[in-house]
């Protein structure tokens, strides 16, 4: 990012911006809206696909092919009473879903949807922010998202919620390390922490899916655990602890958690797209028009959404100890080994 201005907006981190401040504000709003548009899309895709996996149609009554079902659900949830249990802690109870949504949307900001383009004479980078600490920013905000879950479970004043929150905390520490180490190989090869640089490297070279298959596999598996999706959904295991941390939530709070969960899924898919699937790059078509880039990223992201739904339709939920031993005994050594071997190869070449 030599052409971009380096500004120190975040403490301890360099962010690169090519735009003036008001373009950044508009861009931020637009990208947040894109994120919120993708949530109902992901919900619809998941419900339709899950139905197909189970020999049924899924929602198909509201609107053409059931496309308005997610919107109808959101309206229904927002119209409901904002109930709070007597034993709950009011402030934290209402803070938790907000935290979850903020963290999810903020993570979406670093997904590069395209390179720098010129719109109405203004240079605009098609991403929220290009931070010099890409993956670290991702993990930092992922941990803040877990604050949302843990606080929500803790503040509900319900045992099921508390169990769900504790599980969320334990799951976080089992997976965040492996997930981070899975990206270390990519970071070493690229020599940069910026996601935009990673995509630009993959445009020039092979995708990291080819050169870092183990890292990719670990990242996707850990991504499923990060986003609390089956088979690692024991944070909200409905057959064991009702709905985990969101047991006591209804209406807007529930909708927020739900939206955050699906946005996290999209972000996990988008990060995997960016880091391993070449972002907006189309192999064999290097002079693709710039406007096509966001669509390429979104289509690739939805390939991951499809894969996550596929996994959910296939695998049963892991037991608690299985999850822990899988994280610590298999994923972590594998990720470490992958990082070590990559380091040796990078130094040797």
């Amino acid at each position, binding site marked *: 990012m030599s052409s971009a201005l380096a500004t120190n907006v975040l403490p301890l981190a360099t962010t690169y911006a090519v735009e003036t401040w008001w373009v950044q504000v508009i861009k931020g709003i637009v990208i947040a809206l894109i994120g919120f548009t993708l949530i109902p899309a992901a919900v619809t895709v998941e419900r339709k*696909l899950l*139905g*197909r*996996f*189970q*020999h*049924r*149609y899924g929602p*198909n009554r509201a609107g053409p092919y059931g496309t308005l079902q997610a919107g109808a659900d959101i309206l229904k949830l927002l119209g409901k009473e904002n109930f709070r249990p007597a034993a709950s802690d009011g402030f934290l109870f209402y803070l938790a879903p907000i935290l979850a949504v903020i963290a999810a949307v903020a993570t979406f900001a670093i997904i590069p949807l395209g390179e720098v383009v010129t719109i109405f004479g203004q240079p605009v980078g098609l991403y929220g922010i290009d931070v010099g600490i890409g993956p670290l920013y991702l993990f930092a905000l992922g941990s803040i998202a877990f604050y949302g879950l843990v606080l929500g479970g803790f503040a509900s004043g319900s045992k099921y919620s508390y169990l769900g929150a504790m599980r969320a905390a334990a799951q976080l520490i089992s997976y965040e390390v492996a997930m981070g180490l899975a990206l270390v190989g990519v970071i070493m090869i690229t020599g940069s922490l910026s996601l935009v640089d990673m995509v630009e490297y993959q445009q020039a070279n092979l995708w990291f899916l080819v050169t870092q298959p183990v890292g990719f596999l670990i990242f996707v598996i850990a991504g499923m655990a990060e986003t609390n999706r089956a088979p690692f959904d024991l944070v909200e295991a409905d057959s064991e602890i009702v709905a985990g941390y969101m047991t006591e939530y209804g209406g807007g709070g529930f909708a927020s958690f739900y939206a955050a969960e699906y946005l996290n899924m999209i972000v996990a898919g988008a990060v995997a797209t960016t880091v391993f699937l070449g972002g907006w790059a189309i192999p064999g078509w290097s002079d693709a028009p710039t406007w096509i880039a966001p669509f390429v990223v979104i289509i690739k992201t939805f390939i991951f959404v499809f894969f996550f739904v*596929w*996994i959910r*339709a*296939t*695998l049963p939920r892991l037991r608690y100890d299985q999850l822990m031993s899988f994280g610590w005994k*298999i994923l972590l050594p594998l990720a470490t080994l992958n990082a070590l071997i990559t380091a040796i190869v990078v130094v040797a070449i």
Partner: protein
Amino acid sequence: MPLPEHDSYFIQRGPEPGGAGGVGRAFGETIRGLKTTFNRLIEGPDTVQYPEEKIPVYPRFRGRHRLHRFEDTGLEKCVGCSLCAAACPADCIRVVAAENTPDHRVSGGERYAAVYEINMSRCIFCGYCELACPFDAITMGNDFELADYNRSDLIFTKEMLLAEPLERTPLRAEGE
């Protein structure tokens, strides 16, 4: 069933979990499971889109009752004998009989049913009324969409039962 006479029996057990082989096996089985679910995806849905798409009923399907007339004279077959009401285990049929007179002839017999009501909210569709009827005046039809907003609307009168039902229920041919 007596076991065959051997000294020892081989019991098939699942593989022991754990170890590197366990990881490989779990991975392989995951791939196998993904293949299975993907095949289900290709097969497409089996769901019948009910209000738009109806499964045809069999000819012997016991749906809403029908009362019949003689085709040549147009007289009612029911003679008001109340045998159907006596046979009904749910006690949902009410029959009040009246005498036929030469200038007011309703049925083929000596008497006719002045009142014939079936309470569909009580009927269990067992078909005993059909069996009990000596003149085949009442039979079970094919209609099964009987839901209504009011319980009193579910008491079917003689006129409703005599009327030709709206052709709503598709019927399967014999042997189909």
